[in-house]
């Protein structure tokens, strides 16, 4: 006599298994909470940064899901490649709206994020900008838009003050023709004007490769610039740095070299520019390593283990973006857009880059929904193949690891 049919035995076994495993991984059984991610993963966008952001975001999602998810539901991210173009960004955001995502995060290009923010505003979808620096993104005062990274005004006011304090008198700036580049230079120009620092601005397109004719021209201006600032977020910055170095322009005893926008933080800087990058100054949108909390240290270890490279500040921003949204959904106890926006406005969440809160102030305009304490510091590489997190910190002085404001290369 058979006590059970085979199918009944299988069902009972499955039920037993489910009951045993359910308390350990409850999130996997529930309907996932859908998040949208937007960013460049293919040309002509900055796909290297996009890829790093995607890696970091997925790392955060996997960690949250391993702990049971949010409200007992796993997070699932729909990754949309925006190719770094506003039209693709708009299309991606429209697509995510049709998928009824709970919130959207990501993006590396300010111009694209501006287009995406219009769609997010139209549908009322919370949109957390990860690494988009143009002031006008938060300056639009859309209730849906929040930003975890510093904006141009926060970054370049500090850079301008540093340049003035370091005694530079005549700056040459190569800016990319984007909302980021032009916005950054507008901030810098204002600060330089206040300190009587001369400015000579040159505009470049991101797809250009040979910058030597313009560098020769800048080098031959009178008076010769004492600082050359490259405000280019794309990989074109590597060519500019090398062209400036090979021409004997910068970094030299006469002219300092500054690179903004992120490419100087990637380890590829050394393969592409080698010794030309020694003495290069750049900004890093993270905390000094000495101030990293346990979350930051754990994230770095996991990132290095999985991707065989140290995470940049951009990767940390992406990692924290997921944490911020997960915390907001948890606080709201809902996937309703308005509830999440409200939760984000009152959120206090500690991630790898510090404790996040979002300003409700409209003065200045860019402050609205901006993470005002977003860390940013200036470092100057002092040796070949140095990692940004161990490079000497020049500014702000509270975090500085050097007595000097700028180490002039020897002739």
């Amino acid at each position, binding site marked *: 006599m058979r006590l059970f049919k085979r199918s009944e035995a299988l069902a009972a076994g499955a039920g037993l298994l489910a009951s045993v495993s359910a308390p350990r991984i409850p999130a996997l059984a529930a309907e996932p909470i859908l998040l949208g991610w937007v960013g460049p993963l*293919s040309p002509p966008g900055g796909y*290297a940064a996009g890829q790093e952001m995607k890696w970091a975001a997925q790392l955060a999602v996997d960690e949250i899901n391993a702990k049971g998810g949010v409200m007992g539901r796993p997070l699932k991210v729909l990754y949309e490649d925006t190719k770094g173009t506003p039209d693709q960004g708009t299309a991606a955001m429209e697509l995510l709206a049709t998928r009824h995502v709970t919130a959207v995060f990501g993006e590396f290009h300010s111009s694209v994020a501006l287009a995406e923010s219009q769609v997010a505003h139209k549908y009322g979808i919370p949109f957390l900008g990860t690494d988009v620096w143009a002031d006008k993104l938060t300056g639009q005062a859309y209730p849906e838009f929040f930003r975890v990274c510093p904006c141009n005004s926060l970054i370049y006011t500090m850079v301008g003050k540093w340049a003035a304090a370091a005694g530079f008198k005549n700056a040459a700036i190569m800016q990319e023709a984007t909302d980021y580049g032009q916005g950054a230079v507008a901030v810098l120009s204002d600060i330089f004007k206040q300190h009587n620092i001369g400015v000579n601005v040159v505009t470049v397109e991101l797809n250009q*490769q040979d910058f030597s004719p*313009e560098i020769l021209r800048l080098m031959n201006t009178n008076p010769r610039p004492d600082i050359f600032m490259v405000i280019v977020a794309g*990989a074109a910055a590597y060519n500019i740095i090398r062209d400036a170095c090979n*021409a004997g322009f910068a970094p030299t005893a006469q002219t300092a070299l500054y690179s903004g926008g992120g490419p100087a933080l990637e380890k*590829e800087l050394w393969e*592409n520019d080698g010794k030309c990058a020694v003495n290069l100054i750049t900004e890093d949108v993270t905390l000094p390593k000495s101030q990293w909390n346990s979350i930051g240290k754990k994230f770095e270890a996991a990132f290095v283990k999985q991707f065989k490279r140290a995470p940049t500040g951009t990767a940390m921003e992406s990692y924290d973006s997921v944490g911020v949204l997960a915390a907001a959904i948890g606080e709201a106890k809902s996937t309703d857009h308005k509830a999440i926006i409200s939760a984000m406005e009152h959120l206090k969440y500690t991630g790898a880059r510090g404790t996040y809160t979002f300003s409700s102030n409209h003065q200045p305009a860019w402050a609205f929904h901006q993470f005002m304490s977003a860390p940013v510091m200036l470092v100057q590489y002092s040796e070949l193949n140095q990692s940004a997190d161990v490079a000497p910190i020049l500014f702000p002085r509270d975090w500085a690891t050097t007595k000097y404001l700028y180490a002039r290369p020897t002739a």
Partner: protein
Amino acid sequence: MTEYFLLQALNGLVTGLIYALIAAGLTIIFSVLKIVNFGHGALYMMGGYAGYYAIHLLGVPPVIAVFVAMAAVYVLGIVFEFLMLRPLYSNKIDRKDEYAIIVTFALFMVLENAAIVAFGPFNKRPPSFAEGAVHVGTLTITYDRLAAAGMAALLLIGISLFMQRTSIGQALDAVSQSRDSAAIIGIDAKRMYAVAFGLGAALAGGAGALIAPIFSLSPTMGDLPSVQAYVIVVLGGMGSVPGSIVGGILLGIVEGLGIGFYPDPNRALVYSNAFGALLLIITLLVRPTGLFGRAHLRME
């Protein structure tokens, strides 16, 4: 001012020689197969990566890596021609021009996106041909640029001699003039099509390997040079290898001087492509067939 002028002209000449190498390959393909290869920029990019991996995986010196890259891209070109372009030579396809545009454009898209996956999204740079720079007064030019220009010049002389002095070169020229007439004197046109596409691809690949230590490698590195190559091909006269060489050098120098002397320094670099377009417009107004142009035929 004279030194500055010379420096910009010299810099433009170096860039122009690389342009000429890319354009010469495009011209050979166009003159023999009568198609515009929209995948040329991707072949240039593949040459750069082939040289990089030849250095890092095979341990060959950078100069030898250029020839390894040319060989690798030659094979890639031959395989592509065999798999995708052979239908052009039959009557199976009605719209040959459109077919050629689509498959070569697909080649570009596939290679560029495959490169992101295969080689990674981060820029790479092979070792220099020679570290350092030449300084004469205020004139400074790196050994890498000089080496790239010198090797490009040698390759251009080599390809010119090959086209004029060898039986294969003359056979390519014969097929470019008339496939049927060439067949009458015993030339295998299909073989020449494969050779032409492979040769054109190899020149693009060689240019990519030469430029890699100067501009770095990225999956999108071929986008802009391929556009400039089309300008040069029209400028030099469609189908003319000497025309593409002269056109490439001319374009490089005009761009260098244009950027160096444009009255608004703020916008000069952004207008670099406009200087080339202006040169093209003026040339076509004076000589509608380009500098060395001749009437051309469609694929028979």
